[in-house]
């Protein structure tokens, strides 16, 4: 059964990008029909809500947009698209003012009442604006309230997009095929413009931080439509995720970096501190170095019984730890660990995907009518994302998409007839498992998690990547055979697990292929067979697209339109900090 709906603008995702797009589109044209859809509940799914650290913006006296820009470019190892990065840092200023003054976020202040900025790794200025350590809740709750307050914005909660549907002539997008999760019914939403803001989400790794609803759906859909993805080898790992053992959802979620900063020890299964054998800064080394060192320890088998390592805070005095890291101590206690006085098992954990759909500064993509923003979009961060640039990215570009789409519709009026065969194919693909013999979807997920962790993870080589790609093909094949009983499609999580896996496998292949292609080590991408960063002035980024079911990989030169390697926008006086 297929139900049909029509709207002017369809937004996929209710994170920072999606919610901002809806509000801005309505501001740009109060008469336009806007529909916002989310795989989970509005504003309650996705990662923007999970932001702890905060939001990078150059709003604090002494800082500058140029400085924020240079930090972003250097953090991204000269791979970011400079126009996108510039837009990000420049617009962030206006966006934070908007968040405070119009949306209602109430960020933390200095004692004198001015905005407080905290230090965040990799930046030369303390510019991270925050609300305690639950910044994401403040941002999303306020955005969500504003969207709920505007009934003109139609909400499709628990609606999962399964395919972007092109127009009959293939020249533009015509709408999106969705599953109403609550009923299991298919719904085609025809739209003049579509925003892809499903937030990426590298959850194909054994240990990962993002929200459980994210499974790279947006990127997988874009890939199937033939759109190019860039920087897909760039997966950021966070050094300390909780390890709570088998069958636990909390495994992989973040243990605050501040713990290491405050003097916490990382300890291996043999009860030894090991970080100093890798870096003179010990536990205080940067995220990528700590993650790699931990991975090495684990690979060498010096692990805890669950296969991880320990973080230990007790030597700082349990009372002090309990006070300073109250939230973290409580969280650990809820999964049975005593962070203040005992040992907590930790592992590095996949956190953020720098790669995404290629887009212009106005968020438009190669396909007319399709726009992309937030973690689904690629190019802003290059090889590494600064902590605090993630939520800036989604809110800045989500807002831009909302500004731009009404205008685009005005110059491209009218709904376009969808390619009906694409709708049928989409339904056939999504219902495929119902026609197969019952299979072991969970077993396949476990295998995927392991393959990506072991072979396409923190440390890569041509061998491991080759092995990974072969495994991924095998898993894909078996998944295709793995069936689900077609008893009740309403809120059928196992069906959605299958669909999630399908998308995760498809994008995992892209990650592996891009990683194979990049023969150097930059930022989040590290290859033991090519440990050097390569020549900066001739830097390239990877670009992958799917053609006739095969991945095509290209390397594109980075355009240094604003600043070249070796140069800086800061006068040397400023650059010296």
């Amino acid at each position, binding site marked *: 059964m297929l139900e049909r709906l029509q709207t002017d603008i369809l937004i996929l995702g209710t994170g920072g990008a999606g919610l901002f797009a809806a509000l801005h589109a309505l501001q740009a044209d109060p008469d336009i029909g806007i529909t916002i859809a989310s795989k*989970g*509940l*509005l504003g*309650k*799914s*996705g990662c923007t*809500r*999970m932001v702890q650290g905060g939001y990078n913006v150059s*709003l604090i006296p002494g800082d500058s947009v140029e400085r924020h820009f240079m930090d972003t470019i250097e953090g991204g190892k000269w791979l970011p698209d400079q126009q996108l990065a510039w837009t990000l840092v420049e617009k962030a200023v*206006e*966006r934070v*003012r*908007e968040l*405070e*003054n*119009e*949306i*209602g976020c*109430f960020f933390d*202040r*200095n*004692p*004198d*009442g*001015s905005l407080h900025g905290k230090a965040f790794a990799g930046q030369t200025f303390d510019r991270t604006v925050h*609300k305690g350590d639950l910044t*994401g*809740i*403040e941002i999303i709750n*306020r955005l969500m*309230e*504003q969207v*709920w*307050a505007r009934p003109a914005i139609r909400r499709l909660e628990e609606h999962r997009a399964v395919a972007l549907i092109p127009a009959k002539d293939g020249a533009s997008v015509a709408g999106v095929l969705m599953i109403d999760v*609550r009923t299991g019914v298919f719904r085609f939403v025809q739209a003049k413009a579509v925003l892809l803001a499903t937030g990426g989400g590298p959850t194909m790794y054994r240990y990962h931080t993002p*929200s*459980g609803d994210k499974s790279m759906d947006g990127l997988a859909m874009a890939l199937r439509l033939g759109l190019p993805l860039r920087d897909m080898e760039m997966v950021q790992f966070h050094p300390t995720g909780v390890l*709570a*053992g*088998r*069958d*636990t*959802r*909390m495994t992989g*979620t*973040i243990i605050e970096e501040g713990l290491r900063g405050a003097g916490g020890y990382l300890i291996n299964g043999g009860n030894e501190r090991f970080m100093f054998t890798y870096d003179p800064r010990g536990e205080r080394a940067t995220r990528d170095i700590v993650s790699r060192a931990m991975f090495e320890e684990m690979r060498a088998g010096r692990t805890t019984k669950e296969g991880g390592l320990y973080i230990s805070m007790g030597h700082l005095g349990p009372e002090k730890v309990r006070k300073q890291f109250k939230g973290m101590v409580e*969280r650990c*206690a*809820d*999964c*049975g660990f005593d962070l203040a006085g005992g040992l907590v098992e930790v592992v590095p954990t996949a956190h953020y995907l720098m790669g995404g759909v290629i887009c212009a500064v106005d968020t438009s993509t190669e396909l007319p009518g399709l726009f992309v923003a937030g973690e689904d979009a690629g190019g802003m961060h290059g090889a590494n994302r600064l902590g605090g640039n993630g939520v800036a990215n989604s809110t800045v570009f989500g807002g831009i998409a909302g500004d731009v789409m009404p205008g685009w519709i005005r110059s491209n009026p009218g709904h376009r007839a969808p390619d009906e065969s694409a709708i049928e194919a989409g339904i056939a693909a999504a219902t495929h498992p119902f026609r197969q013999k019952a299979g072991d979807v*969970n077993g396949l997920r476990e295998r995927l998690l392991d393959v990506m962790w072991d072979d396409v993870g923190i440390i890569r080589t041509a061998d491991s990547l080759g092995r990974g790609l072969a495994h991924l093909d095998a898993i894909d094949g078996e998944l295709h055979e793995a069936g*689900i*009983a077609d*008893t009740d499609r*309403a*809120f*059928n*999580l*196992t069906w959605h697990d299958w669909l999630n896996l399908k998308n995760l496998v498809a994008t995992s292949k892209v990650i592996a292929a891009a990683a194979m292609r990049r023969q150097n080590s930059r930022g989040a991408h590290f290859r033991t067979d090519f440990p050097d960063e390569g020549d900066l002035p001739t830097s390239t980024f990877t670009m992958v697209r799917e053609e006739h079911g095969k991945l095509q990989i290209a390397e594109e030169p980075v355009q240094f339109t604003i600043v070249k390697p070796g140069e800086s926008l800061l006068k040397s006086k400023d650059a010296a900090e």
Partner: protein
Amino acid sequence: MTPEVAETVEVSLWRGREDGRYQTFTVPLRQSQTVLDIVTWVQRHADPTLSYRFACRVGVCGSCAMTVNGKPRWTCRTHVSKVVDDGKLEIGPLANLPVIKDLTADMAPFFEKWQKAEGRFVPSQTRADNLAVVSPESAERRTADAAIECINCGVCYAACDTVRWNDSYMGPAALNRAWTLVNDVRDAGNRSRLSAVASDGGCHNCHSHQSCEQLCPANLNPTASIAGLKRRTMQAYIKGELG
């Protein structure tokens, strides 16, 4: 010390819509295991059709609340040993909301009431302006801060008898949010907000049962926030400021 736990736990899960029934499963216990893990285990290993909702899995999204052995809880942050009773768990959807299926409740009424309480910021400035200077030590800011970290999980709403008894009652979370806005010096909507929370479904229905305050997983105190609203609206009423 973690107490010695049995190897398995008997779990009764609500199945179906409003007119469903409880179904029992035997689930292996693990050392680090939350109620959400139990439910997940059932879906993955015992009955693939089981429906439930979660997202963040660390207590920030407020998607995973369910009724666990009679009390509403955030399941992703509730360790099994904390709630298991005599080797048993009974898990149902959140109370005071329509059931969608199995363990999922429809949260729309909860958010509609959030809007009825005018739980949304009304700007007094625009993005062109600088940020307001607000001392972190001011009484208003501290009052707002004390109540702001709500994850809209609906636990308090499900725990409140007044919500159960009175359809029109806005409930603790919505009123708690309204209270933070009343204390937000930047907000321009308080005249109409105070009238809204002083109207028929508003703060005056609260009997200070304090179930909200006792069960809120974020350790907020809606009872105190509502009491604040009662006082503030009363002052406004006496001064004739309510529309």
